[in-house]
């Protein structure tokens, strides 16, 4: 919210400076986004009165004759340029909006300056017409800066819990609690004992719990006085006319939106109801809207007929808006159901100053005071006569008392604030403090956020200042069920560190996936899609990590042409199973390029390297790890394996399918991906045997297509319990072997934990191996 310093200072006269204000507000919980200085008006901009406005034939322009202390002639294209209004006139030499005003000849007429729009003067956004003042606002020729000195505006962040602070008075009350004197505006209202010529019916009290209508007549609609226009510009609003400006001014003062209806367009009065299906309304912004049956509307009525004249709490209708010839108004000041307003504002994509406040809530007791304040200003500034009565429907709900224990406040805060100090703070905030132990504290009705004892505790701390709360560290033993909960996290951290130690570089990629791209990666469509994606490429959630790694590689190749890469990512992937989202943590790795070796010699890379790295990883983790051939659609059909860890299927390892690579214009790449968390093996110490090893070598000739794992498995099984280890040391094909066969040669180590193995025992084990090999139809070589 924009807070003009001078405006707030009217209510808090002791305010020192904008800088001090910023600091105070920060301590109260209102952060200033930025500080703006406006109304830097050059001295050559003066107040002038338009004496004469005549069209220049054949153009859209007018020749204006102005009284600016002397008579000045200028050319203006503004639609609202007319005799009888006051304007801001930039005389030659003035610099406005980054341009220097000079004397110019326009369409054969010499313009001795320029009549300015709010935008040209730099006080507002509006550039569609002249800034319009009452013609007697100032003596002609007075530099405008004398009436409109520079203003400092704080742009405040007001959190949704403090709708009261969306009015300057709300901030003033908070500052008052800090010790500043408060000067609330006085209402000086003289009313007339006249009957109110319209009725009020609220058909939907849930939508409008409290609704009031004031009556003002004999109005003279015209431009607002300079101070009011300045206040609105400073607050970021555009002055329209005195009547409309007053409603906005009071809203900015009290956070209570209001709306003035031209009485001529209401029929017999106002009816508050939900919209009928298909009902239409042209709102003030000129948009013709089809209403939704849930929208709350303000309608005029005649007998049983009614017709919408406003979208309640959001925007008034165009037809009934106040215009120059409006003489009498019904002034609506109400409290609406915040949720209803929020839904309507969303439905019509129409967020206004009014809806913004109503959806956060207004002071339930604030309607009548706001009526009186607005009516008094109408009387003072628009010549209005005001009826004595105010129509009222519904019962405002007053705030309820809250039990409050000062010692609880200290217990929650860890402070030792004296009881008297705490109660004094609550009183300064406008609370009514009654009773004792616990106290009954009734907050002021504008403070919708105060409903619990904890809310009052925050008030005490907020006004004392959070800096007065000491520092402490709690000492306690956690409840037993919390012990060890951090173990899975620690394990994953260590896994990442192991991978980094093995030479893998960690990368992070987005959790999103492009559903269009799934076929490109030969993947199924991702089942989880976003309702509101930022872009089509991020419209779904990923099911695998490896596509992200491939993209990372592609970008790096395009930019930096690395000769090789070894990447990993640990991250979440998302599936749906039986209608339930299954979120899993995956680990994926990628290998590309020349691999390892001497820079000037032969290199090892590809599948064997990546598999070797995984074997090292699993050896370090103490987990059994196997790969068996299994075709995955996105992997090269001949280099595609399923990963088993401790007998559990965990993922895949292989070369990326050439078609996927071609689609991405990538060279050959090897990847793996597996599901975490990995199992943890219970540790059991084994005393290493001190007895001698028996070493044997063995070569087995098997058909070419036989997987290594099968051979290894058979040997291990046949060797019996004393085979300590077995290591492949040669793989051979070619003469003198039969075509279509290969020879696998192993070193075998036998050992017994408690005694020396005899030659006979080892020979017996070897004999069992020979027999098993032959039974399988394989041969022993040599």
């Amino acid at each position, binding site marked *: 919210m924009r807070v003009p310093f001078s405006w707030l200072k009217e209510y808090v006269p002791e305010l020192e400076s904008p800088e001090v204000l910023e600091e105070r507000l920060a301590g109260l919980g209102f952060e200033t986004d930025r500080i703006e200085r406006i109304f830097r008006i050059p001295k050559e901009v003066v107040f002038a009165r338009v004496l004469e406005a005549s069209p220049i034939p054949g153009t859209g322009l007018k020749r204006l004759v102005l009284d600016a202390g002397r008579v000045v002639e200028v050319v203006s294209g503004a639609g609202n340029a007319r005799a009888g209004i006051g304007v801001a006139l930039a005389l030659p030499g003035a610099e406005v909006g980054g341009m220097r005003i000079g004397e110019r000849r326009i369409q054969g007429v010499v313009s001795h300056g320029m009549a300015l729009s709010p935008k040209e003067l730099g006080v507002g956004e509006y550039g569609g017409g002249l800034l319009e003042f009452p013609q007697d606002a100032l003596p002609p020729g007075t530099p405008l800066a004398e009436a409109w000195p520079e203003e400092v505006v704080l742009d405040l962040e007001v959190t949704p819990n403090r709708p009261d602070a969306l009015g300057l008075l709300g901030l003033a009350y908070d500052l008052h609690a800090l010790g500043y004197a408060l000067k609330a505006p006085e209402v000086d209202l003289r009313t007339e004992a006249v009957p109110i010529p319209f009725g009020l019916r609220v058909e939907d009290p849930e939508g409008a719990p409290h609704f009031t209508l004031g009556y003002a007549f004999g109005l003279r609609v015209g431009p607002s006085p300079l101070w009011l226009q300045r206040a609105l510009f400073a607050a970021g609003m555009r002055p329209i006319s005195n009547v409309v400006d007053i409603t906005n001014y009071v809203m900015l003062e009290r956070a209570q939106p209001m709306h003035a209806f031209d009485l001529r367009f209401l029929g017999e009065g106002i009816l508050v109801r939900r919209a009928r299906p298909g009902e239409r309304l042209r709102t003030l912004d000129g948009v013709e809207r089809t209403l939704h049956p849930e929208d709350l509307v303000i309608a005029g009525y005649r007998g049983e007929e009614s017709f919408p004249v406003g979208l309640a709490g959001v925007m008034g209708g165009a037809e009934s808006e106040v215009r120059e010839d409006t003489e009498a108004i019904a002034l609506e000041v109400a409290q609406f159901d915040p949720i209803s307003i929020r839904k309507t504002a969303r439905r019509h994509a129409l967020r206004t100053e009014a809806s913004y406040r109503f959806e956060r809530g207004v002071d339930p007791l604030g309607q009548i005071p706001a009526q009186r304040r607005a009516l008094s200003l109408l009387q003072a500034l628009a010549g209005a006569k005001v009826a004595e009565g105010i129509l009222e429907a519904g019962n405002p709900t007053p705030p309820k008392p809250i039990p409050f224990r000062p010692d609880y406040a200290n217990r929650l805060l860890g402070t030792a604030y004296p009881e008297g100090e705490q109660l004094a703070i609550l009183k300064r905030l406008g609370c009514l403090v009654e009773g004792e132990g616990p106290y009954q504290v009734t907050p002021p009705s504008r403070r919708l956020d105060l409903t619990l004892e904890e809310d009052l505790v925050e008030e005490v701390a907020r006004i004392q200042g959070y800096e007065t709360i000491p520092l402490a560290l709690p000492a306690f033993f956690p409840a037993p069920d919390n012990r060890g909960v951090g173990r899975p996290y620690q394990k994953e951290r260590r896994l990442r560190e192991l991978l980094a130690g093995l*030479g893998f*570089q960690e990368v992070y*990629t987005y959790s999103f996936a492009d559903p269009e791209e799934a076929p490109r990666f030969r993947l199924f469509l991702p089942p989880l899609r976003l309702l509101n994606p930022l872009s089509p490429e991020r419209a779904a*959630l990923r099911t695998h990590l490896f596509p992200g790694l491939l993209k990372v590689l592609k970008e790096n190749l395009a930019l*930096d042409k690395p000769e090789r890469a070894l990447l990993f990512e640990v991250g979440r992937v998302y599936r749906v199973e039986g209608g339930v989202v299954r979120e899993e943590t995956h680990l994926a790795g990628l290998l590309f390029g020349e691999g*390892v070796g001497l820079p000037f010699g032969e290199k090892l890379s590809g599948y064997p390297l990546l598999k070797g790295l995984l074997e090292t990883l699993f050896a370090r983790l103490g987990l059994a790890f196997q790969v068996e051939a299994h075709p995955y659609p996105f992997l090269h059909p001949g280099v595609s394996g399923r990963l088993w860890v401790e007998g559990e299927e965990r993922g895949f390892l292989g070369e990326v399918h050439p078609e996927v690579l071609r689609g991405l214009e990538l060279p050959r790449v090897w990847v793996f991906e597996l599901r975490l968390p990995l199992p943890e093996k219970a540790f059991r110490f084994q005393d290493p045997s001190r007895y001698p090893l028996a070493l044997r070598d063995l070569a087995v000739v098997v058909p070419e297509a036989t997987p290594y794992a099968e051979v290894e498995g058979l040997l291990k099984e046949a060797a019996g319990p004393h085979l300590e280890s077995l290591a492949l040391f040669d793989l051979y094909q070619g003469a003198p072997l039969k075509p279509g066969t290969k020879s696998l040669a192993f070193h075998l180590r036998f050992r017994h934990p408690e005694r020396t193995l005899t030659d006979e025992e080892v020979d017996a084990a070897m004999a069992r191996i020979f027999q098993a090999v032959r039974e399988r139809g394989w041969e022993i070589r040599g």
Partner: protein
Amino acid sequence: MRELEEALAAIREAESLEALKTLKARYLGKKGLVTEALKALAHLPLEERKRRGQELNALKEALEKALEDRARELEEAALKEALERERLDVSLPGVRLFSGGLHPITLMERELVAIFQALGYEAVEGPEVESERFNFDALNIPEHHPARDMWDTFWLEGAYRVPGPLGEEAEGKLLLRTHTSPMQVRYMVAHTPPFRIVVPGRVFRFEQTDATHEAVFHQLEGLVVGEGITMADLKGAIFELAQALYGPEARVRFQPVYFPFVEPGAQFAIWWPEGRKWLELGGAGMVHPKVFQAVDAYRKRLGLPPAYEGVTGFAFGLGIERLAMLRFGIPDIRYFFGGRLKFLEQFRGIL
């Protein structure tokens, strides 16, 4: 004696251990000249035998010594030659293995988690796809409340359910969690106080990306619940964080702010001595009574006894990217998901 001179010269000039062996055999071998001469002594008269024997022994010793010396010389030369032959250019690069590294966010997160682990906190993680029940409702952010505007949210298509705190199926519209705070609810439902936890994790905001904003980023949530936990304890925790991150000159500043799931609520800043400025790091506060009530209500649904009556707690949350950017001098948040190795490889020195 002339023979001796010749023999010694031959030994001295022997070119190899092989040649030396031959010489040794010629003079001292079983049928060597000296051996033969010694055998012949037996036929000489005693006096002469004695004299001649001494001569021959001296001769034998001289030869043996010469052989030994020469052998040593030759061995030394051979070793020297071998060492010379095996000389390497030690400045040549070795076998090129890979050098890996961790992502800077992992590094920053690890540092933060370690700070809190030293204070007795355990690190736990929660799901990224979340139900609005845990992301909003249970955190006192009901539907249609303007407070929901504080979190721009990615919503998911489809009427799926997510696993709840104890693996049960949880209802509610699905979204990508906008903060790590839903883990407050999940953790409390599944555990009993007192405890201290931190929750690092990835969060999502429906937000266009620029140099300082990312739609996907990382937070660290803290939650301490027990009897008598105070706001002073919260300030102490953040103070410890500040001191651990930036040393004894670091200070903390707390200001009131609104988060629906804490009361009193605060935002906190840390005085960064090196940069000489306050860093607004995150939000914090005392756990809102409505959050405790929502937790106990959910526990009841699961058949668990209430566990959060009469306890208090504090929670805080902070962004990891921001701290990493300051720690490492990274100018643009987009680097983190950029995947560029030239960026990532720079963090390898951080152990």
